[in-house]
């Protein structure tokens, strides 16, 4: 592989909001995200690939100020055990849809030299969409894992329509410095080592 090809690869995986209360909220089956088995299997694959390449796995967890079940420490706030973080993984708690708002995520990515990351998790039309847009408009390159994000349906569209719609829209976005969003399947995504990684 050429150095140029490696330079274009992501050096981090952002696992966004894959928490009990988002994936399969207790008592709210209508909000369970679609295709849970496929979603979690693909997230597992991405995590394994990222770690094997020496890329950094970063977890984002969503907290709700007016929803005690989704407060930090509550059971529904936890990342689902199928893809639980390793003890040393960096974790951010956010209170808003956009993972960059009031979290320090941008500063952390910059400190670690991450210019390109993979976005995966839930929910496609909220935190995946908001985080991807925010990142590319700030100049980060984003690879959207098109088969590793999910949501539930709303009054306008089914979950499958929303997911396909995000996969059609987000890769058209562009940002400063030539930043782009590319949509790839889990199988297509290849990672590169983070700066300072030994892999």
């Amino acid at each position, binding site marked *: 592989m050429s150095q140029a090809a490696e330079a274009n690869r992501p050096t981090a995986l952002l696992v966004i909001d894959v928490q009990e209360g988002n994936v399969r909220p207790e008592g709210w089956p209508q909000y369970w995200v679609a295709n849970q088995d496929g979603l979690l299997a693909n997230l597992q694959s991405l995590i394994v690939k990222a770690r094997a390449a020496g890329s950094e796995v970063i977890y984002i967890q969503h907290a709700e100020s007016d929803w005690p079940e989704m407060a930090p420490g509550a059971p529904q706030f936890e990342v689902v055990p199928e893809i639980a973080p390793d003890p040393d993984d960096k974790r951010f708690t956010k209170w*808003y*849809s956009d993972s960059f708002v009031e979290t320090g995520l941008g500063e952390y990515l910059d400190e670690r030299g991450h210019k390109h990351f993979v976005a995966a998790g839930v929910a496609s039309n909220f935190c995946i969409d908001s985080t991807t847009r925010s990142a590319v*408009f700030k100049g980060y390159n984003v690879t959207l894992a098109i088969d590793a994000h999910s949501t539930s349906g709303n*009054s306008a*569209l089914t979950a499958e329509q929303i997911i396909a719609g995000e996969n*059609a829209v987000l890769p058209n976005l562009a*940002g400063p410095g030539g930043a782009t969003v590319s949509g790839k399947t889990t199988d297509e995504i290849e990672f590169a080592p983070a700066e300072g990684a030994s892999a």
Partner: protein
Amino acid sequence: VPDGDRPLPHALLVVDVQEAMFGPKQQPPVYRADETVARIKALLDKARSAGAKVVYIQHHDRKDPKMAPGQPGFAIRAAIAPHPGETVVVKRICDSFAQTNLEQILRESGVERLVTCGIQSDFCVDAATRGAMNRGFEVILASDAHTTWDNGILTAAQISAHINATLPEMSGVGPNIRVLPTADIEFAPIGD
């Protein structure tokens, strides 16, 4: 707070309603083009007569020669052209707040609450609406005054309906986004 008792918006943001969006040569016009422009005209009339601030956003697309300053396609749609003295902000990135002085203009004008409308629902209108919310503004999306094109997966009507359903559920720095039809939107003068 019941919607009728909420403080009224101080500004109208008209996003990317430029001649190139209306065809005819290289693309079909946006979905429901004339109806959308008519509603934006109604919003402009209400905003101006109330003394609210009107801000136009104009997209300069480096990859699309039709969307460069000086080209006919770059011009704001004639039917809703800015009045003399109104603010026009040119952007090069989908997000109206990215690398522009839009936030500064709004703050210096005393705008805390604003209405978004324009083209395209799923790109620059969505981005402006999310972007304003995350800068602490209280935002109303005019549900029937934004439009787009079919994208091969979803129809324009589905996309716009989806945006209207999704944005109020988002959380951000400002209050939750409200989605109201043009007929239900009224403005307040700047400073009110």
